[in-house]
């Protein structure tokens, strides 16, 4: 028996096909807009990454040593690798820079999850401060999800700067308690801490409403503006909402002004992606500047990561019709040419070189395929009815 390490999975068959299809669609959509594919090493050096990772994240690293004795961890985050690559391989004049990537990530699972290996797709846009970048990334992301047939994908938008500003007048320890409560999604702890602080009535009321500022984007923005005034973060969000609505993506958009993303380095708009059919977030991202600063870059970047396996499990992609094609006595050249015609008309072909055509039919049945093709006769037959001729070359 060949056992597999606990917390890892082999992806094959239909699942493997779906993951590959998702990866392809994301790459196609993003690379068409100038996002260069990027492949990072599977290991990250502790000495380069440790200081840049938030403490909560550090506990989940899986350490290993390279054959040359360098202490590393299995790649746990692709943003770090992407920013390190962009900051060292391109001059400041070449910005903005765009990369997209797909590959496995390794983090110790938080129960009840058990897998420590995840497949992620992500994209980063570095060096553009304006609004266009947020709209570009979110719109391309939603387009990819729509192409994959994901049921009503929803982007939930928040703003790290809005949270920071809203809590900026408070005592530092109270602000940090409130931020932590939002990060941990413990609203009851948020209200308790706020209640115990005995703030003046005017200051207290908008904050008590903060965790409830979510849902329909225009309505939420209106209420937030009434409570907190017309702040810059709210103006940023209004512009993004307006642009996405103009692109016909308004129905895929919600606001959550209490949204605090896991990684502590976000500085501007942040977002998470949900689908009606998945119980949890498919991934998320946002604008960050702290990480860039650590690489000596002044400015902002924007990125996101999505769990490819979850997205693949939700995608409604069926793929081409699989069939076994019997070659009979045809020469390999003729058989491949005829198979090409069937592939062009929407089949995915598995060639059978057996002399006996019954053997080819049996193979198709054992694969659970719906079709077999008689290449010498240039004819495709559905397996449940041998009489019905469907397609010829």
């Amino acid at each position, binding site marked *: 028996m060949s056992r597999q390490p606990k917390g890892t999975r082999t992806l094959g068959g239909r699942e493997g096909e779906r993951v590959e299809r998702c990866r392809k669609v994301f790459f196609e959509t993003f690379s068409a807009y100038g996002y260069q594919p990027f492949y990072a090493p599977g290991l990250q050096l502790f000495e380069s990454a440790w200081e840049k990772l938030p403490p909560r994240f550090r506990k989940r690293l899986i350490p290993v040593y390279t054959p040359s004795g360098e202490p590393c961890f299995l790649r746990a985050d692709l943003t770090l690798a992407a920013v390190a690559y962009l900051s060292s391989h391109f001059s400041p004049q070449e910005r903005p820079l765009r990369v997209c990537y797909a590959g496995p990530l390794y983090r110790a699972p*938080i*129960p*009840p999850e058990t897998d420590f290996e995840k497949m992620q797709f992500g994209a980063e846009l570095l060096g553009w401060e304006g609004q266009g970048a947020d709209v570009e990334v979110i719109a391309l992301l939603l387009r990819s999800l729509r192409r994959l047939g994901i049921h009503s994908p*929803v982007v*939930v938008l928040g703003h790290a700067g809005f949270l920071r500003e809203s809590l900026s007048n408070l005592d530092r320890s109270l602000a940090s308690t409130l931020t932590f409560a939002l990060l941990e*999604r*413990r*609203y*009851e*702890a948020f*209200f308790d801490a706020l*209640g115990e602080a005995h703030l003046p009535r005017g200051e207290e009321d908008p904050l008590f409403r903060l965790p*409830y500022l*979510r*849902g329909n984007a225009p309505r939420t923005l209106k209420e937030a503006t009434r409570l907190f005034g017309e702040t810059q973060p709210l103006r940023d969000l209004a512009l993004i909402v307006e642009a996405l609505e103009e692109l016909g993506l308004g129905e895929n958009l*919600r606001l*959550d002004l209490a949204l605090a993303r896991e990684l502590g380095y976000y500085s501007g708009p942040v977002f*998470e992606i*949900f689908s*009606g059919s*998945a*119980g*949890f*977030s498919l991934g998320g991202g946002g604008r960050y500047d702290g990480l860039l600063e650590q690489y000596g870059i002044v400015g902002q970047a924007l990125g996101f990561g999505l769990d490819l396996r979850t997205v693949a499990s939700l995608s409604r992609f069926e793929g081409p019709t699989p069939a076994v094609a019997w070659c009979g006595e045809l020469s390999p050249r003729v058989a491949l040419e005829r198979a090409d015609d069937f592939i062009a008309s929407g089949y995915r072909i598995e060639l059978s070189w057996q002399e006996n055509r019954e053997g080819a039919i049996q193979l198709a049945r054992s694969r659970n395929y719906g079709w077999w093709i008689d290449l010498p006769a240039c004819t495709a037959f559905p397996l449940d009815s041998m009489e019905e001729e469907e397609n010829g070359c």
Partner: protein
Amino acid sequence: MLTLCLPTGRVLDEAVEVLENLGIPTLRLRERGRSLVIQEGEFRFLLAKPMDVPVYVHYGIADLALAGSDVIWETGASLVELADTGRGVCRIVLAGPKKVAARFLGHESRLMGLRVATKYPRIAEAFFADRGIQVEFVHLNGSIEMAPRLGLSDCIVDIVQTGSTLKANALSVIAEIAPVSLKFVASCKSLQLAWDGIEEIIGKFSSSSRKAGDEDGKAV
């Protein structure tokens, strides 16, 4: 339709009362028989073992739930804690016989290798690891209090309400680990995609808590 997951066992009656106070229909829930999935009006109720409730919420099977803070911590489920119901109040403690309790007053070296019986291995592990004490855990699923008496463990980590079961088994509280109560929680997905329905319930929750607080003569 919103799906609510409720814990079976002794806390279920309290959970049903909480729902009733929120104006959520509970007639079929009260007359549930052996059904574990009950539909009533705009709600679907799932009845699950207390330890499984957070898991149903984590995976988005349930939009909302009433779950104890002990099982939320122990399962590590990712969910949103919306409010404390103030029900099911108890605490997680470290308890043991007198002679073991005395060891906790001395140097930590006297605690190394202690054997701890618990149905909360994650919480117990966090408690001892934070203090740098290496112990051995025995994972039990019930009647934890008898473990020290029978020599299976030196002490226990368990929930305590009145303390009478501890007393009956010659155990006393050595350390308070955390207070426990029934929380009103939501799945991360439902909080975003079903917010209108959830907000309506939270609204009722706040006013019902306020009312209860006024009646008790204390702030809630």
